[in-house]
C-alpha cells in the first residue's frame, strides 16, 4: 500500500468512525424507547376490537417485546465493540504511517538486540555508534536483561541513514566470567541500499572458550 492509498484508507476509516459514532449516539438517545412504548399499546386494543383479525395478523408476543430492549442493547454492544476494533485498526494504520513518514524505507536502518544463553555474560549496557556518531545507548535493568534471556528481541535503534557504506560499532559492557567487568566491541561495515536495513546484535556463549561472543548480523 503506497502513501496516497494509505491516506485514503485512513480518511475512509475516519468517515466510518464518524458514522458509527453518530449511530451510537442516536441509539443511546432517550427517544427510541419512548417510541417503542407508544407503539406497544395498540396491539391489545386491536385484539379486543377484532379478535379474529388479531389472530389473523400476527402481533408481537409480550415476551418478544420484553426481549427487544435486550437485543437492542446487544446490538449496541456489538456496535461499540466494532467501533473499538476500528479505533485499534486506525491506530495501527496511523502508527505505520508515522513510521513510514519518519523513517522511510529508503533511509531506514533498524538495529535489534538479542541474547542467547548468557551464561558467560551479564548485560549491563549497550552503546551503538554509526559512522562514529553515538546513536543509541541503553542501560539494562535486571528485568530487561531477563526478558532478553527469555528470547526477547529489543529494537535498540531506529533511524535514518543515507544510501551507501556505513560502519556500525557496538560496545557491550557487563559482567563476564567470574564476575569480571567486561567491555567488548563489535564492528560491521554495511551497505545501505534503497530498502530498509535491519541489523542484529547477538550475544551468545562461546562454550569451548568459556567466553561470551558478540556478533553483528546483517539481515538482507
Amino acid at each position, binding site marked *: 500500500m503506497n502513501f496516497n492509498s494509505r491516506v485514503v484508507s485512513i480518511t475512509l476509516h475516519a468517515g466510518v468512525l464518524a458514522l458509527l459514532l453518530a449511530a451510537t449516539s442516536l441509539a443511546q438517545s432517550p427517544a427510541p424507547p419512548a417510541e417503542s412504548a407508544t407503539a406497544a399499546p395498540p396491539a391489545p386494543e386491536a385484539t379486543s376490537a377484532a379478535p379474529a383479525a388479531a389472530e389473523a395478523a400476527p402481533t408481537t408476543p409480550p415476551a418478544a417485546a420484553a426481549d427487544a430492549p435486550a437485543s437492542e442493547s446487544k446490538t449496541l454492544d456489538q456496535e461499540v465493540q466494532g467501533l473499538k476494533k476500528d479505533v485499534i485498526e486506525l491506530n495501527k494504520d496511523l502508527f505505520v504511517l508515522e513510521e513510514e513518514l519518519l523513517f522511510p524505507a529508503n533511509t531506514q536502518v533498524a538495529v535489534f538486540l538479542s541474547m542467547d544463553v548468557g551464561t558467560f555474560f551479564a548485560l*549491563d549496557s549497550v552503546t551503538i555508534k554509526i559512522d562514529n556518531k553515538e546513536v543509541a545507548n541503553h*542501560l539494562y*535493568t535486571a*528485568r*530487561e536483561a531477563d526478558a532478553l534471556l527469555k528470547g526477547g528481541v529489543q529494537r535498540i535503534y531506529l533511524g535514518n541513514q543515507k544510501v551507501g557504506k556505513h560502519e556500525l560499532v557496538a560496545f557491550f559492557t557487563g559482567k563476564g566470567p567470574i564476575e569480571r567487568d567486561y567491555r567488548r566491541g563489535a564492528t560491521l561495515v554495511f551497505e545501505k541500499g534503497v530498502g530498509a536495513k535491519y541489523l542484529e546484535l547477538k550475544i551468545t556463549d562461546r562454550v569451548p572458550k568459556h567466553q561470551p561472543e558478540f556478533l553483528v548480523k546483517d539481515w538482507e
Partner: protein
Amino acid sequence: MSSLAAAPPSLVGKDAPDFVLKARDGKNLRLSEFRGEVVLVNFWARWAGDSRKEMPALDRINTTYQRAGLVVLGVTVDDDVRRSDEFANSMGVSYPILFDLDGSTGRDYRIQKMPVSFLVDRAGVVRYTNVGFKRGDENAYLDEIRELLRE
C-alpha cells in the same frame, strides 16, 4: 504543607519522566519498573546543605513505609561517583542511590535547586514536589505518602 504548595507545579499532575540509572550497588534501576508502588524521587547533592538534613529523614520514612509499598530513590547529580558514594555512606542511607552522571534526568525533572523531591503515585504520575528541606517537611511528606499509599 506550605512547602509543598510553594513547589514549582510544572510536573505535578504529569507522568513522571522515566529514567534508568546506575545505582551504588552496580544495578540499573528504571523508574517505570516501580509502577504500582508509591515512589519518592529525591535529587540531592553533596554541596546542598539541606540534603544533609533531608537524607536521614527520608531514610527513616523509607524504613517505616517500604513494606507498605513505598520506594525511595536518591538521585545525585554529582559527577564524582566516589565522593557521592562516600557522602551517602556517611549519611547512612539504606535506600538506593542512583548516579545521574550526564545530568539528563535532572534536566527532565527541570531541577533548579537542590535538594528537590518528587512523589510519584502508583500510576506513575507526579503528585507532589518539595524544594529544599526545612522543619516540618518530614511530616508533610508523611501526610502525602500515607494518602498515596491508601489509593
